[in-house]
């Protein structure tokens, strides 16, 4: 994978996530799709194992650093870790399953976004929920929060169809090994 291309793609995707996500929010409920998570699954589907894990950790850590949680003293804090670990788990699951999937099919991407999104969000909710037991971070009721996060995972799977199609179009410039490797040919 070309890391320069990944960096530019990540920058644009984070811009979409941070700037455009609220326009796609479902009414006043805190359910919105994640562009970054679709990129995580896309990279995990095509990149080599070490590159995929590294990309998942970087993107997850950036999402953690961008997102803040309010505290009972009126300030906001950054909690580094939940999304990084959640995205890592998602990436690992995709790496395990990708041999069984039709990678070029956009439905496979959407299915993996849903499946791994659910796993990642359960882990994120668990870690943040545990922290609220002894810390002053303000967190919604864990079940309500989990419901909203699972809703977002489902919504991200829907977003994965158009956004994943766009990523598939530009896939050659990422320089994934699967694209650059020459296939078996009989002459």
């Amino acid at each position, binding site marked *: 994978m070309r890391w320069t291309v990944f960096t530019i793609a990540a920058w644009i995707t984070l811009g979409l996530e941070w700037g455009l996500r609220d326009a796609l929010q479902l*009414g006043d409920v805190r359910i919105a799709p994640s562009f970054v998570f679709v990129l995580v699954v896309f990279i995990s589907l095509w990149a080599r194992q070490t590159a995929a894990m590294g990309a998942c950790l970087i993107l997850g850590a950036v999402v953690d650093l961008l997102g803040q949680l309010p505290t009972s003293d009126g300030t906001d*804090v950054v909690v580094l870790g*939940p999304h990084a670990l959640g995205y890592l788990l998602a990436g690992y699951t995709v790496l395990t399953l990708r041999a069984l999937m039709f990678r070029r099919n956009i439905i496979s991407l959407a299915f993996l976004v849903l499946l791994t999104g659910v796993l990642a969000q359960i882990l994120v909710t668990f870690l943040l929920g545990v922290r609220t037991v002894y810390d002053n971070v303000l967190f919604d009721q864990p079940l309500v929060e989990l419901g909203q996060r699972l809703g977002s995972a489902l919504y991200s799977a829907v977003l994965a169809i158009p956004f994943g199609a766009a990523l598939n179009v530009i896939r050659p410039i990422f320089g994934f090994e699967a694209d650059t490797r020459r296939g078996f040919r009989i002459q």
Partner: protein
Amino acid sequence: MPRRTPSARLLLSATVLALVATSLLPTSVTRWIGEWFRGPLMTIIAPISGPMSGLSTWLRPGERLPSRDADTPQAELIRQRDDAELRYLRVLDRVQELEALVRDLQRGVLYTETPFVRREARRVGSNIAGGTMDIDRGKRHGVREGSIAIARGSDQLVGIVTRVEPMTSTIHLITDIRLEPPLLDGVVMSEGRIEDAAALADLPQLQLEPGRDGLLVSESVGVNAAERMVVGRQVRLMDDSWPSTARMLVLGRIVRIEETEEPLFKRVLVQPEIEPARLRSVILAIPEGDDQVEAAP
């Protein structure tokens, strides 16, 4: 010769352990992470998320009322009327405050007043999960924690600045259920002109808290006070726990008055006139101090 560089597996395990630690250690230990890394990261992200936020506002505008920014004579008159009304209400509120101050001074309480400056700031992102919004003005532009965000072209209170980075700041929105302090004291305006400070003090008051659907809710308004409230009336902030720059700003309009299980109380729901999370830009009321404030471009 033995390998000196750690294997990828070892590096990954160490990273995972470090992330588990930062996820679970209390805020007092991990606060430095946000202070060190978030500012530079936001400086990198803001140039791309800013235009996306603009696109977001265009796709899904947050304003429920016609914009006062229009250049028609009618809009100009409405703008002048609203500004005059806010100033007038603030004067009445100030009279009340000064009366209280006279009482305080007689008791020997120290008097301080905070002047403020106004700066326009553009939204560069929203955190739906955190109930916050990021803007493109930070420490370098003189923004401080506790500055008040007001919707541009309106008197609608948007929120309070809770975090300031070098180039960006975070505003906690009034509609988020985790707003601290969670209760907002509001006063319901009357239809006619409020003659004096005593009339302002006599208006029905209520304590609002953010609900789950973007509304502000007062769960226990006495039936006598509720009888003086009418759907459609404007509610303004009259809360001593908020900075003085926020006083008499608009919280929203009453959209519903509902019965509760308690016959002596009613539930009042207030909807902000503008959706705070979807604004293109806000006006910051920044308390003035010793810090050097750069001129806004």
